[in-house]
C-alpha cells in the first residue's frame, strides 16, 4: 500500500466517521426515544388514536378564505417568511425574508423581495416571466403561460422557484387543497395575530401539517405555519401575511421593470446537484462480512 493510498484511506475513514457522527447529530433530533420503563403521561398521550376528520367548521373557514381570495380581481399584500435551517450544532437557525406581492388576475404577478438575503424581483407580465437580481444586475427571461397558476408551475419546473404564499394567490386555493386534505379542525380564536381577531384552524395532508390564522371578519389569512412530514428534522416554516389590499387599482407598468429589461441576461435553471460529465452516480456500498476471528 502506497503512502498516497494510506492517506486516502485515512481520509475515507474520517468521512465514514463523520457520517456516523453527523448522522447521530441529526438523528438526535428525530429518533424516537427508547421506551421508558413506565409509561409517562406524554407517552400515554402519544398512543391515543387520532381520528382523521374534516371538521365542518374548519372546512367552512378554509372555504370562506378561499372564496374571498379567489374573488379578488387584484390584490396586494406583504409576505414575511421565516424558515428554519439547522446550524452545524444541530439546533435550527431561523431566516426571514420579506416580499411585497402584487397580483392582477388572470396573468400578472409581481414579487419584490427586499430582504433579508439577496434582493430579488419576479414579474409575470402576461407574456414574459422575468426574474431580476438587482445586486448582480442579471436577469432571466422566459415566455409566460396564460395564467398565474401556470406561471408558478413553470417557474418551479424550470428554475425551482417557489413562493410560500402561492397558496393564497392561486385561482382556487381550496380546490387545490381539497383533494389531498386528510385532517382539519378548529382550534379557537386569537386576538394577537395580525392585529385583529382570527380563527385558528389546523389542517393536514399526507405531506404537510399547517396551522392557519384567518381573519374572523374579512376571511383573509394572516399567518400560516407549516411542518412537513418528509422532513426528518420537523423544521417550522412560518408565513405572515399583512397589508392586505383587494381589488385596488394597479398601475399598468407595475408588472415590468425597465432596469431588468436592459441588463445582462442569464438562463433560468434549477440548481439541483449534477454530476460531472462522464461520471455516474455512486452507489452505496454493501457491507462486507469478513470472518470474525478472536
Amino acid at each position, binding site marked *: 500500500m502506497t503512502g498516497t493510498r494510506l492517506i486516502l484511506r485515512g481520509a475515507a475513514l474520517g468521512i465514514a466517521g463523520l457520517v*456516523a457522527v453527523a448522522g447521530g447529530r441529526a438523528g438526535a433530533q428525530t429518533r424516537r426515544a427508547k421506551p421508558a420503563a413506565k409509561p409517562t403521561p406524554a407517552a400515554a398521550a402519544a398512543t391515543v388514536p387520532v381520528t382523521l376528520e374534516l371538521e365542518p367548521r374548519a372546512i367552512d373557514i378554509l372555504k370562506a378564505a378561499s372564496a374571498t381570495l379567489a374573488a379578488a380581481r387584484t390584490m396586494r399584500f406583504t409576505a414575511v417568511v421565516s424558515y428554519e435551517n439547522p446550524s452545524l450544532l444541530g439546533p435550527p437557525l431561523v431566516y426571514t425574508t420579506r*416580499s411585497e406581492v402584487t397580483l392582477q388576475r388572470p396573468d400578472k404577478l409581481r414579487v419584490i423581495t427586499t430582504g433579508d438575503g439577496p434582493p430579488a424581483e419576479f414579474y409575470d407580465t402576461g407574456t414574459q416571466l422575468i426574474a431580476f437580481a438587482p445586486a448582480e444586475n442579471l436577469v432571466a427571461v422566459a415566455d409566460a403561460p396564460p395564467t398565474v397558476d401556470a406561471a408558478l408551475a413553470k417557474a418551479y419546473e424550470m428554475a425551482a422557484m417557489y413562493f410560500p404564499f402561492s397558496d393564497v394567490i392561486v385561482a382556487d386555493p381550496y380546490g387545490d387543497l381539497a383533494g389531498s386534505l386528510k385532517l382539519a379542525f378548529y382550534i379557537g380564536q386569537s386576538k394577537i395575530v395580525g392585529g385583529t381577531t382570527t380563527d385558528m384552524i389546523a389542517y393536514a395532508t399526507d405531506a404537510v401539517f399547517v396551522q392557519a390564522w384567518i381573519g374572523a371578519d374579512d376571511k383573509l389569512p394572516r399567518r400560516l405555519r407549516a411542518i412537513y412530514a418528509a422532513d426528518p428534522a420537523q423544521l417550522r416554516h412560518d408565513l405572515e401575511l399583512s397589508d392586505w389590499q383587494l381589488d385596488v387599482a394597479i398601475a399598468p407598468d407595475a408588472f415590468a421593470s425597465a432596469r431588468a429589461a436592459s441588463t445582462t441576461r442569464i438562463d433560468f435553471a434549477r*440548481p439541483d446537484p449534477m454530476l460531472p460529465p462522464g461520471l455516474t452516480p455512486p452507489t452505496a456500498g454493501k457491507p462486507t462480512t*469478513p470472518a470474525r*476471528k478472536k
Partner: protein
Amino acid sequence: MTTRLALGLVGLLAGALAAAPAFAWAHANRFGGSTSGSYSSWTHSGRWGGSAAGGNGSWSGHSAWGGTASGGGGSWTAHGAEGGTASGGDGSWTAHGAYGGSASGGEGTWTAHNAYGTTAYHTAGSGTTTVYGTDNAYHPTYYGGTYYGYHPPTTVNYYGSGCYDCGGWSSAGAAAAGATLGLATGAAIGEAAEANTAANAYTAGYAAGSTSAAYTTGAIYATLPAGCSPTTLAATTYYLCGNTWFKPSYGANGVYYRVVPTP
C-alpha cells in the same frame, strides 16, 4: 496497519455515541489506563472501561460505551453501540451510521452518503473530492455571521419532484424523504470535502485562497469569489475567476453560480 485503521474507525464510531468515551479511549494511558503484554499477546484497559486484546494475528477491542471491534487475517469489523457498523478487508471497506449515513471505498476511491441525500465522492488520483448536494456550497455561512448567501425558501431537494401544482405549502408535494437543504449532516461532509480539497490545493502548491483549485466542476455557489471577469461566449454569460469558469443562472429564487468546464 489494518488493525490500526480499524481501531481508528471504532473510535470514530464511538464518537457517534458521545465525544467523551472516544476521547477517553484515545488517551487512555495518559488519564489512567494500563497496558500489558508479552511477545505474542497483549491487553489494554482504559480508565473508563474500554479494553483491547490481541495476539496470534487477531485482535478485539471494546469501548466502555458499547462499541466493539475485532479483526485478523486481513479483515475487520466494528460496531458502535447505537448501531453504526463498519467492516473491511482485502483493500475495501464499508461503514454505516446508525442514522442512515453510509460510506464505502477502497484503493483510494470512496463514496459517502448521508441520510438526507448528500453524496461525497472521491476518485483515486483525482486530488479532489466532489460533494453532490446543495449544503456546503449553496449555504456557506451556517453560523449566520452573514447571510447574504442564503436564498429565500426553495423547493430544491425539499419539496422534491412532486410538484403537483406548485401552488404552495399546502399543495406542493413534499414527496422527497431526503431533505438536504442545510442539514448539519451534509454540512459535516461538506466541510470534510472542503478541507480535503484545500489540502490537495495546498499540496499542489497553490496559494491559500486561490480560486483555481478550490472549486469542483458542477458545484454551485451563491456568490462569486473576488476578481472575476464577466465574459459572453455564444450568447451565454460566464465569469472567469482565476482559471475557474462560473456560469450564472437564476434558480430557487436567486442567482447562483455553477462551476463549469472551460466553455
